[in-house]
């Protein structure tokens, strides 16, 4: 096989999810009525924001060789704290800041802190105490959701001030600001993962922990920071969700974990660790929401969505296995 052909095949295998996304978009555009319009595409990108931002952190933890099941509850906690402090109705305390725009950075910082705190707790138990990430983050998934219900008393906070809601309503160049935020997050973290020593180490630690330890890399710190990042990004996702819904309810974001996991797996991240790239994860999120949108437009009952998504995750894992075999055969 010539090097050029080999490189082409390698490139296609690495970017299979983008290929799938393009094919799916073309098929939907041709077959689903009213699918092919700018508004729909803009909507898909906007819808992808919340799960997308969450999936970045989840992907980083999985690439480092761990697992974080708690991101959904963490996002809900960040959303509830934002709602509780700044919403003016329901259980909201309606804290007002002077000048009014200050609420934006302050609420974002608080949401990120809340998320990072949960991430640190996860990191402490998994990295320092050596407990199983699956169990630790499953426990967090439960207790953090419990905390959300506890601090809200099961009630909801509504009506965030206009100064902060602008994030959920503004458009830039015809695209919703929310869409730009998710694209921005993906660009930023793709860059960090591909171009900085930290990103390199996350991949190396996920590939062979012992080797990185021997090479003098502080592998425990990398694992810990991955958990903190996952929590922090889940916090941002929750903050965006609170703004979008202008408040928070105790069951906000239920089911996001599954979508984020599906996107990460479809995006080519291996659950074994060490393999996967963030642009692929973004394609995975977009693919997921293209399918959501198409199902909505076709007027299928919503419960079919879950069946299709489940099948899609299976297909993605199957594809991953096939890809490995294909690579072994061809390269």
């Amino acid at each position: 096989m010539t090097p050029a052909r080999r490189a082409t095949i390698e490139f296609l295998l690495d970017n299979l999810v983008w290929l799938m996304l393009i094919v799916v978009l073309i098929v939907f555009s041709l077959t689903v009525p009213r699918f092919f319009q700018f508004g729909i595409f803009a909507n898909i990108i906007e819808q992808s924001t919340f799960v997308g931002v969450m999936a970045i952190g989840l992907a980083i933890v999985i690439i480092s060789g761990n697992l974080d099941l708690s991101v959904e509850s963490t996002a809900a906690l960040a959303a509830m704290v934002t709602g509780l402090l700044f919403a003016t109705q329901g259980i909201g305390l309606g804290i007002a800041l002077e000048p009014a725009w200050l609420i934006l950075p302050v609420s974002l910082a608080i949401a990120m802190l809340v998320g990072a705190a949960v991430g640190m707790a996860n990191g402490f138990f998994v990295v320092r105490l050596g407990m199983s990430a699956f169990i630790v983050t499953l426990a967090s998934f439960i207790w953090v959701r419990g905390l959300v219900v506890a601090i809200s008393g099961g009630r909801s906070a509504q009506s965030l001030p206009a100064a902060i809601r602008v994030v959920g309503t503004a458009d830039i160049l015809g695209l919703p600001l929310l869409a730009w935020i998710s694209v921005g997050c993906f660009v930023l973290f793709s860059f960090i993962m591909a171009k900085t020593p930290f990103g390199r180490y996350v991949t190396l630690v996920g590939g062979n922990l012992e080797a990185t330890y021997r090479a003098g890399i502080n592998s425990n710190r990398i694992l810990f920071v991955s958990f903190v990042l996952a929590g922090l990004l889940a916090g941002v996702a929750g903050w965006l969700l609170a703004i979008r819904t202008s408040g928070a309810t105790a069951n906000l974001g239920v089911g996001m974990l599954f979508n984020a996991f599906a996107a990460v797996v479809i995006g080519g991240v291996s659950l074994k660790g060490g393999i996967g790239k963030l642009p692929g994860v973004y394609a995975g999120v977009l693919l997921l929401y293209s399918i959501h949108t198409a199902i909505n437009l076709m007027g299928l009952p919503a419960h079919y969505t879950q069946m299709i998504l489940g099948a899609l995750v299976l297909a993605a894992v199957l594809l991953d296995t096939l890809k490995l075999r294909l690579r072994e055969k061809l390269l």
Partner: protein
Amino acid sequence: MSENPPLLKLEAISKNFGAIEALKGVDMEIRAGEVVALLGDNGAGKSTLVKIISGGLRPSSGRIIMEGTPRDFASPAEAKAAGIETVYQDLSLCINADVVANFFMGREITKRFFGIPILQERAMEAVVAKALADAGTRIPSLRTNVEHLSGGQRQAIELNRFVHWGGKLVLLDEPFAALGVEQTRRGLDMIRQVVARGIGVVIITHIMAQAFQVADRIIVIRHGRVAGDVRTDETTPEQVIDMITGGTLSGAGKGRDQGNSSPATGERESSQ
């Protein structure tokens, strides 16, 4: 022997794993620019000793003295910072990353932009290409993941890594296990190159011929103790085998608990 303190000196190093005594007081010295072959039967304590020197394990008692200063390595990172490089028996490569990433693992070339370190891929690739070319190792593409490379190519990367980084002391734990005849010869050449730069080398091997080919001195570990410490040109493979197995044919085993050089001296006299 010389006015300079030895590169590395171990004093009464012992290591217990629970009730098991893996090392029972090992004394040895390694000087700069010297190759020491560490021999011993399976379970004699060679690998434990290497792990202690490389920072992977801490001794239960005893002192590690490097260039005259006592050291206590809490992690491989600390040993590495002190100039000790290790090539492990089970390779330390991340097969999910490419050749360049593995070569530079933990020592990436970066440039700071606004305080953020950015990997300099091209500069790193050039360094790796030169290092591999100098060593005569051929790898189709430096950007292929290591999982697609053969066992020999993988080991070549490890060996080139230590040649390139060097440091002060290199520990090689069964470095040629996966190599063919030609590659092994090249590996032994690499060791000579490294030594010529004044670096000390400790090589663990099972193959007597390799030890005699490359080492200046042979240290035999038996039952967690130094059973023999002899210059390569003053001994024979048969005598070394006696030390390893504790055989008493030539009286080599007798003195193994008393001191370092007595078995060797005893042997030399009897064989001359």
